[in-house]
């Protein structure tokens, strides 16, 4: 039996954020898709180099949804 090992990043998050990452992945051209495996609703396995990209995409998304009172 052959065992294949792939190095990757294990992401654990809540349900909406998993959907956000899946949607982000889907919006990219095939060559840039980064999800290796969707494990379940809250766990994903992705390529190692995308951590920063996901983080900044998420930060931007959050910023759009939060209002700060002008002081």
């Amino acid at each position, binding site marked *: 039996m052959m065992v294949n090992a792939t190095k990757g990043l294990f992401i654990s998050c809540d*349900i*909406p954020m998993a959907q*956000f990452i899946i949607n982000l992945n889907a919006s990219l051209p095939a060559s840039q898709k980064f999800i290796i495996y969707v494990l379940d*609703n809250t766990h994903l396995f992705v390529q190692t180099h995308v951590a920063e990209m996901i983080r900044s995409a998420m930060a931007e998304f959050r910023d*759009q*949804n*939060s*209002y700060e*009172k*002008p002081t």
Partner: protein
Amino acid sequence: MGHGEKGRPAKKHKSSAKEGHRKITEVEDAFFGEEVDDDRDGEREGKKRDFSKLELKPDHANRPLWACADGRIFLETFSTLYKQAYDFLIAIAEPVCRPESMHEYNLTPHSLYAAVSVGLATETIIAVLSKLSKTKLPKEMVDFIHASTANYGKVKLVLKKNRYFVESPFPEASDSAFTFWLCTVLKKLLKDEVISRARINSEGSNGSDGFTISKSIGEIGTVHQDLLNGAEVATAVEQKETHAFEIDPSQVENVKQRCLPNALNYPMLEEYDFRNDTVNPDLNMDLKPEAQPRPYQEKSLTKMFGNGRARSGIIVLPCGAGKSLVGVSAACRIKKSCLCLATNAVSVDQWAFQFKLWSSIGDDQICRFTSDSKERFRGNAGVVVTTYNMVAFGGKRSEESEKIIEEIRNREWGLLLMDEVHVVPAHMFRKVISLTKSHCKLGLTATLVREDERITDLNFLIGPKLYEANWLDLVKGGFIANVQCAEVWCPMTKEFFAEYLKKENSKKKQALYVMNPNKFRACEFLIRFHEQQRGDKIIVFADNLFALTEYAMKLRKPMIYGATSHVERTKILGAFKTSKEVNTIFLSKVGDNSIDIPEANVIIQISSHAGSRRQEAQRLGRILRAKGKLQDRMAGGKEEYNAFFYSLVSTDTQEMYYSSKRQQFLIDQGYSFKVITSLPPPDTGADLSYHSLDEQLALLGKVLSAGDDAVGLEQLEEDADDIALHKGRRLMGSMSAMSGAHGMVYMEYSTGQKHGRQGQLKSKPKDPAKRHHLFKKRFT
């Protein structure tokens, strides 16, 4: 813009549109206030200063406020002088933010104009302020007060026996040097061609230069005198001398215009000497003995009738604090024909009811004029209650209403009572005010904020703000309900969020976050809890008609929206008030204003109009009317919180942004929102709807297959204020001065035109990083 728009130098770039360089901005920028918010940050940062060198007065601990050179004033609410200081500050400054222990106020030209118009003299303002301040008053502030009040209130326009007089009254008229100066004011006005042409030389005028000289009674009940030593009360002159000349009634508009700051700069105050009006017939109506105005209602009336005449202006009281009693009391004092304008037919009925409830007016002296009921009063004086739309309507009318409207136009009204002035668009105001002749105008509102900047228009269309109550003080006094505000966070379900993120669903975003099954379940849970555990009466608000219908049908509750007929509305509201079976009703935004539902004490908001602070405050107002026994409601009583305001928000969506923005007005009034994250509790399974995935998917299918139109917002005739948001036509100006909330000003920028002498106005360099995400990629 109108008078009083001379901003402090630091703010010039906002108010320099005075000369009417009104610009149309593009739709996109008008919708989101972000860039302007950023400007404001910059502006404030520039003001950071070191105050440590200010010299404290030795007894500073006994004095309640800090006055800063930039016009900001901070009031300690725990001071023993708080009550007096509050009354004084509310008369001279705009409240910015009023949390529990420390209030912030701002001196603006508008607020000082209002102060002068209720009879405060420049010197009194400065004297009282320096008494209350912990430090020596900054010179800048004293200068600012002098500059802003120098010309305000020096000239009045008085309607006496149906003749218009330009009058120059002043408390220190006994001083001979002043009399000389005063005469020169009138002379100065008469040098103006328009005004001198409008002048009527009346016979029997005495005094130099043919001015009519008369004595009038001095200010009664000057509340702030107790703050001054006897020596300082130079203003309490019992009899005052006034000089006046008459002008041609047809020229009144022009004369008023000449007196605005951009011309002669003597803005006119308008007052109605109703006691000496023998031309218009009296209306025999009195307050019933059981109608006992509360202290703050009394105070607001004192501001209006301070010198025995009726001043035009706006009174701001939270919903449920008894605005109608203030209106009815004002009408009872003036005792002349009164035209009362409301926003819709339901509130017309309510106003008519309030008049009969609080005053001794006869049934045949009051009538309603709506599309459904066209009554007329008998006799030569009476009260007419109608809607803004009925009066301003431009199209063809039935013969019957044409006759009534003709009567309304031809009559001279003693009082024009205007309800909910913040919702009516300015152009409709102009129309109503130009169509009806009234001696005195009183505007009533709960929230002097609008998402457009038209608030400032009210200032010269109606008059200055006469009084504004502090919400938390009324809560403490038990006059309005103590509301627990909560924001309930509902996570999006996996399937709904996946659709929400898809680009092709951008128009359905709102429907998706409103119909989020977790939100539905939270709503259902709250309804059940309050109906069954506490026996409460609940209103559920949804702006989104699709959601409103879905929720109401699924939960089998009655609903009211724009298309619901008057009869049906009355029936549903009646059932809600009396029946034990009907404890929850669903309302679209028709319920935001005026529908009086005193029984309700719980509000659940499932969808709302973007970031409208006004809507949030109006909705809260639906449950502010105090219920139960007074002692139970007081702090520490049996029911410290007896009303509940829930705002259901789907997390990770745009709704979060809107929700926090909407809360700003209430937060500025001192309210705090509690965040609830686990509703419904995890152990509630199939008890509540949409538990199974199949049900959720069926709902999702329904949302996705509905047309884009069906899932959009309901548009009503009366919310032109909100509609204006979408149209994106913007006029330059600052609403902040009047709104008291200073929250948001829309992005405005000039297109192409050079500004000549208004050099300060430069379009700000735009930082693409600060743009709203929707526009980030534009203009780069």
